[in-house]
């Protein structure tokens, strides 16, 4: 790795399949009946069909099969934990190697996106307007579905670029920024108006939207990384901000020589990987053990392969700094106690076991705060997340929500957000059609 140029170190970790590889792999697929991969995919992409179309050389048809079920097929092909989903369910995995579904999906979607082939047309106009707030996976997916159903959609994004998590939160090794931006472009092609630099922050804004639109879909994601609550906190780098900076301007990314990453989820792996590829010595600090980590097993193994160190049963208690410069992290050893509310053993500090890990940068990646906006808007909550009914409608009529901001149950992931967006669009469509029916009566 050392002999590679920085740009090469940050290329997508999996190269695209060649035509020959794709043909061989596609022909290996059994084309199962009611295939388990299709069921395992949260967006239920008809995987055997899209793979068969690759095998027959019908790449445009293949991409359509994917994108009809999942408008973010290009992103999901890269970021989905396929081992936990489609590939994990592949019947060939039983005594053999599962089909590389993610890479085949990427092959088909790249084919049309790189050629700028327009896949969908807006539906016949319904005369109804919907505002979508947040241009992450849920917002894009909902907007696309609504546009195809004939709605006039305006998508609001508080940042400069659309794409949300795909654009700002996924490291380039997994998804280059162009891929995310192509998906935003595909949405514009569907006639969706994308308004960036526009933030929804208070109830009055929401009322304005409700006055101007027939429905509002909130796809606002989650908040920042929560505070550690330790002295010296102000010198800790926010993991999400770190990843964002790496996507926007890798050349000017500030990376220490000895980096500590606090937390052991998938974001921690991502932040650690970036620092590592920038040449740092990286150690992940986690207060529990390997067994309780929230990162996927394959992510953990990837991190180990990258040469990232892990220190388990270690809790930071203070960040040490000298003249504004981080010099270390004071930690305490932990032991596992009784199970806590999450069902995992509760880590407890071992008194008097304090020690210092030298470091010149400390990055925190200990999850994300629950959506703060929910309270400002006066929405009913469920476990701190926005509460919705089966049609994804919130406690405020005509206001719908989806994506990570409603993820009270289950795992937050891009593909789940895409499915939320799709289902919410159908929910909006059903509610508005019913409302119109009543007016006509």
């Amino acid at each position, binding site marked *: 790795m050392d002999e590679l140029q920085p740009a090469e170190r940050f290329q997508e970790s999996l190269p695209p399949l060649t035509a020959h590889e794709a*043909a*061989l792999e596609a*022909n290996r697929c*059994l*084309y*199962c*009946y*009611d*295939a*388990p991969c*299709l*069921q*395992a*995919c*949260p967006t*239920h992409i008809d995987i055997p069909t899209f793979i068969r179309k690759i*095998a027959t050389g019908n790449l445009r048809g293949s991409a359509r099969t994917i994108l009809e079920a999942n408008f973010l097929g290009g992103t999901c092909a890269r970021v989905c934990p396929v*081992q*936990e*989903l489609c*590939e*994990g*369910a*592949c*019947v*060939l*995995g*039983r*005594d053999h190697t599962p089909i590389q579904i993610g890479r085949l999906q990427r092959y088909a979607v790249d084919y049309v996106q790189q050629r700028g082939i327009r896949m969908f047309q807006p539906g016949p106009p319904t005369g109804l307007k919907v505002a979508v707030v947040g241009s992450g996976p849920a917002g894009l997916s909902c907007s696309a579905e609504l546009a195809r159903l004939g709605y006039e959609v305006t998508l609001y994004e508080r940042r400069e670029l659309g794409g949300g998590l795909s654009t700002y939160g996924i490291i380039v090794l997994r998804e280059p920024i162009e891929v995310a931006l192509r998906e935003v472009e595909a949405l514009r092609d569907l006639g969706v108006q994308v308004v960036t630099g526009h933030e929804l922050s208070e109830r009055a804004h929401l009322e304005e939207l409700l006055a101007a639109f027939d429905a509002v879909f909130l796809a606002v994601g989650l908040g920042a990384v929560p505070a550690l609550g330790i002295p010296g906190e102000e010198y800790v780098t926010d993991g999400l901000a770190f990843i964002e900076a790496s996507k926007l301007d890798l050349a000017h990314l500030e990376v220490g020589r000895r980096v500590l990453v606090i937390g052991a989820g998938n974001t921690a792996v991502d932040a650690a990987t970036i620092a590592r590829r920038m040449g740092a010595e990286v150690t992940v600090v986690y207060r529990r053990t390997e067994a309780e980590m929230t990162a996927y097993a394959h992510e953990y193994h990837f991190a180990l392969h990258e040469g990232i160190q892990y220190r388990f049963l270690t809790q930071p208690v203070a960040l040490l700094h000298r003249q504004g410069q981080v010099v270390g992290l004071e930690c305490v050893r932990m032991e596992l106690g009784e199970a806590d509310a999450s069902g995992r053993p509760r880590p407890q500090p071992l008194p008097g076991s304090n020690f210092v890990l030298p470091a010149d940068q400390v990055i925190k990646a200990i999850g994300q705060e629950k959506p703060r906006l929910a309270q400002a808007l006066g929405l009913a909550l469920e476990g701190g997340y926005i509460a919705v009914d089966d049609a994804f409608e919130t406690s405020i009529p005509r206001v719908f929500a989806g994506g990570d901001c409603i993820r009270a149950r289950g795992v937050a992931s891009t593909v789940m957000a895409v499915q939320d967006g799709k289902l919410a669009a159908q929910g909006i469509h059903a509610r508005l059609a019913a409302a119109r029916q009543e007016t006509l009566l």
Partner: protein
Amino acid sequence: MSDLRVNFAGIRAPNPFWLASAPPTNSGYQVNKAFEAGWGGAVWKTIGAPVLNISNRYGGLSVAGQRLVAINNVELISDRPLEVNLREIAEVKRLWPDRALIVSAMVEADPRAWRDIILMIEDTGADGIELNYGCPQGMSERGMGAAVGQIPESCEMNTAWVTSVARIPVIVKLTPNVTHITVPARAALRGGAQALSLINTINSIMSVDLDTLMITPSIGGRGTHGGYAGPAVKPIALNMLTELCQDEVVRASRVPISGMGGITTWRDAAEFLLLGASSLQVCTAAMHYGYRIVEDLIDGLSNWMDDHGFATLDDVIGRSLPQVSTFGDLDLSYRAVARIDPERCIRCNLCYAACNDTAHQCIDLYSPEGLRVQPGFDVRANGRAVADTRPTPQVREDDCVGCALCANVCPVDGCIEMVPVPSGRQSVTWNELTAAQPEVGSDWDAMQRYRAENRIDIH
């Protein structure tokens, strides 16, 4: 270690693997190299009338990414001068006295032309002559190749001209582009042939290029039919070989048959031997992979023979022929049903789709809890765990007609087996049944009565 030596109509070879008359046997350089690799014999690429070849010459068939499942060619006979070929044949034979070296020939339908070429071939010291009555393209338009093989009178007459002159064995190579392969075979025997070989290539248009809309291979924008060969033609070749071996005239003549058509591995070779071939010819597989494949052909066949206790090829040749029958002599009361091994089943459920859509709807799906379920799935379910709730296919044996489609589509070896089960009926063949009760074969009401009496339920 089994003995693979061959004595084919007096032509001896250390093993039955001969290169067929084709591009792999076009020159002394090539045949020398092939013999070095271990081939037991070679049939030199057809010599005879002057020709000009064209480019390009081959079309290839790919199936599901597998290249060259078949090849077709518009190549003609050897375009090298006759005397060059004859000189090289003589040199090769001198260098390799233990190998079978046979020369394929084709000339115009004139006894003097045949006499001239036969004498020249015999002067080389070659072990035999193969008469190419098969080439379906290029030469047939000039009255040679398949044009001879397709007309029994021509086949007999040309063969007779050759056999009246030749002192070395004469093999007649048959074209498959006929309705009944036994007709030209019998004609060749009447003409005095000492052996037969088959199959030559099959008429074919390989494909149309979907970008250029040209027939492939495109020869300056035009295309023509070519001769089809390779793995894809093997079942056709095996059938024609079997038809010959069962023909009473061919059997009575006791002439040996050299089998070819899609032999790619020793397994294919063993099948040709079991259905009556006494030597084997290979072309496409060598064109695909080179001469080196002969090592595994010999090794694999030899190991298989050892495993089965076959000491010599004579123990193998024709051994499966007694099982070949006609529909009228098959036991109508035999019953086999499909049985799916749930341990091996990977739940792709292709058997379910095949049985339900295109066979007899006798496979059901069962949930892990043992409940019969309909296809489909809960859209709320996702994640790899759905694999654990996959329904398992199970055959409703009472309704299974034993068509074996499921066993053929199943991707797992040994997962679906056709298991013989008692039918509860007396063994009877169609021929026996219609001899005893002719009305059953001509009248539907009689057939229905017969079924009712014998409790044959067709759903």
